């Protein structure tokens, strides 16, 4: 099953995530190696911010007999779904994009996994790079939800520990009509660098655009939510000198690029994670579609030892599994779970060159 925020504030990101899941499922189907016939992926709409609707949808999907759930996306409803549905019903629930640090410690009975790394780690990475680049004072704006706030907390914590100054640290709401007030008060702190922790086509983009237009900051720091495919922030000019990080940089990335190229889609934020999430469920259910067994198999399949499987090799992986050979799924993002079922993740550092992203370095 696929439970995503098709409508609601994240609706515009979901297209890419959806593509990722579909790609994995169709690859498995095309290989003909799946032991239980064709894979069907019923879809549910989590609305991203409507916990009641998300729970109802999750219940519906589970009663439709899905063997596992990919999703939801937003950390808030993810928590609701884990608490109310998946943990209680013993269904594996693997989110491609919920990055809130709080999810690491949730009581999930071992049924919750995620292929997106926790933000706690990214905050440290960003802070270290910033200090390394000699940036000693920044203003921070984050999208006012658990993702943005969590990431900002992590970043500010490590940055200040490293000796940096945060002049202003404030949240912005999604989907508002105007962000010039945010820009005005952020710029008044006097720092010339702004760290933007938000969504590439949400409020953060509007905010960054307004900021660039008024010349409020010289350069910007972006976190994963802001870095996608295509030109940087829709081709906004005036970003040169800015940089950011996003999960990636594993050896697996090349395989993902060729998979998407072959399928003719442009990968977007979290689409690789979504692909991996779906692939993991498929692989883990090769032996048995019992929900409990799937959970038991997840860790073994995601982690070493075993034959490394990268994106585009789902069929091969299925084949190996049916032969009884152990695999280590790396997929599109180099999946490796820690003991609470989260990927550790590595991060790629990007520079904005002209209007394009250019990756320069990997941080593990």
């Amino acid at each position, binding site marked *: 099953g696929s439970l995503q925020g098709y*409508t609601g504030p994240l609706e515009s990101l979901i297209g890419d995530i959806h593509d990722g899941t579909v790609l994995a499922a169709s690859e498995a189907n095309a290989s003909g190696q799946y032991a239980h016939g064709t894979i069907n992926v019923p879809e549910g709409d989590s609305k991203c911010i409507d916990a009641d609707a998300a729970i*109802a949808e999750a219940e519906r999907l589970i009663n439709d007999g899905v063997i596992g759930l990919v999703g939801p996306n937003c950390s808030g409803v993810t928590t609701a779904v884990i*608490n109310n549905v998946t943990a209680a019903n013993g269904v594996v629930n693997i989110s491609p994009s919920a990055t809130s*640090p709080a999810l690491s410690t949730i009581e999930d009975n071992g049924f919750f996994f995620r292929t997106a790394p926790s933000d706690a780690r990214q905050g440290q990475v960003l802070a270290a790079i910033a200090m390394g680049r000699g940036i000693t004072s920044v203003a921070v704006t984050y999208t*006012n939800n658990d993702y943005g706030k969590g990431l900002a907390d992590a970043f500010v914590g490590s940055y200040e520990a490293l000796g940096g100054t945060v002049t202003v640290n404030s949240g912005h709401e999604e989907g508002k009509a105007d962000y010039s007030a945010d820009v005005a008060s952020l710029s008044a702190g006097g720092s010339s660098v702004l760290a933007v922790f938000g969504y590439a086509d949400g409020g953060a983009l509007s905010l960054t655009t307004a900021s660039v237009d008024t010349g409020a900051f010289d350069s910007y720091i972006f976190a994963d939510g802001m870095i996608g495919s295509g030109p940087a922030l829709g081709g906004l000019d005036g970003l040169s000198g800015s940089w950011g990080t996003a999960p990636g940089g594993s050896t697996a990335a090349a395989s993902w690029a060729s998979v998407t190229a072959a399928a003719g889609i442009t990968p977007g934020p979290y689409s690789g994670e979504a692909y991996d999430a779906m692939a993991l469920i498929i692989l883990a259910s090769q032996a048995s579609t019992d929900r409990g067994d799937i959970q038991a198999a997840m860790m073994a399949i995601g982690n070493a030892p075993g034959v490394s499987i990268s994106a585009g090799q789902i069929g091969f992986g299925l084949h190996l599994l049916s032969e009884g050979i152990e695999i280590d799924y790396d997929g599109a993002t180099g999946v490796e779970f820690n003991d609470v079922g989260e990927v550790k993740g590595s991060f790629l550092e990007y520079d904005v060159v002209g209007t394009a992203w250019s990756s320069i370095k990997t941080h593990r």
Partner: protein
Amino acid sequence: MMNTINEMWTSHRTQISFTIMTAILLFVGFNQSWVLALGIFNLSVISSIMALGVNIQWGYAGLFNVGIMGFAALGGLSVVLISQQPVTDAIEAGGFNMLIALMLGVITVVVGVVLHNKKFNKWVVFASIFLGFFAMRYFFADASSAIEKVNPAGTGYLGGLGLPVLLSWVVGGFAAAGVAWGVGKITLGLRSDYLAIATLGISEIIIYVIKNEDWLSRGVKNVTGLPRPVPYELELQKTPWFQDWAHYFDVGLGEFSTLFVKLCYAGIFVSILIGLIIMANLALDSPWGRKVRAIRDNEVSAAAMGKNITRQHLQIFVIGSAIVGLAGAMLVTYNGLLNPTSYQPLRFTFLIWVMVIVGGSGNNLGSVIGAFIIWFLWIQAGPMGLWIAEVISNFAGEQSSIALFIEDRVHHLRLVFMGAIMLMVMRFTPGGILPEKNKEL
């Protein structure tokens, strides 16, 4: 034939509509799943209670409250503050200063009001409030940052009192009532749309406070794992008697535990709903109700007949809001989490309004049926959209461009669907499904 159906409908609206709704839920139960049906049922009951509160305000008194979301959120916040376990570290870190800050706040307000009432120069009043505010601010800033620094990823807030969760529902009602009283005192002089925007504004303010005052509510980081008035599924699954039962009914343990928990909730919710409806109907069908309807009909004339309009409006505003607060607390308990970002006007204010109007404003049972129908649509419009997409692609061929196009956009079809059905229901039942008797359309 058409005529007899029509007559049946007009004379037995209530029975017929409730029968149909039950049938639909049973259908969902048999064909999709009982867990889903019960889930829809429970949420519908909670929505009914919220809609009832709104109906009391609008249907009885014509008060256009568009701040439902805020009162529901207050109920939700009460659950956290009453029933969560206290975070001792945080209290040690900043609890004392916070207490001082809050007390200073209260003192400032009281002093301000007293000075104002004693007709002191307004600059004196202003200065004292100003001073009080900064004194409060001083302690407050320290306290809140100290509290928020305590394990921000896990807690970072004060926690609650650790009292029973059912008590928090009552407190939720009272909290909403208290705020409604203050709001009403200030804004009830405003008419219709103006009152609407004022209440809308106040509800936004409440949400912003809950979102941004992390020390109080953990802000956007959500509070999860709230206590329940009913047993936990995982524990049930471990008890032998429960396993026996599941075996006896021949239902999977997981599903059976979920069902059981939902049934327990359903029992609690339904008894509250029935109690409220009985009380509301008794009140409406009495001289009190007559007075209230008269005021709604013509305020100038009611005032000339000696009725105190402002006081009556305030009473109704407070009661309605308290009921919304209660429902808000129930909802948060049911979900087990307080998620401030989920408080969106569309979901918590406008959807409830649609329920009231579709059901028939002024009629308490109407609010119930409205809540059931609209919530059902809200949940099932998605699957219906998917189903339509499937039909189309069967019809036009799996790979035809139209099928692909629809397939791609199917999730937006639900919006169209939801809207279209809503429009249809309203069109064919002017005045609502169960209109108030003697009501102007």
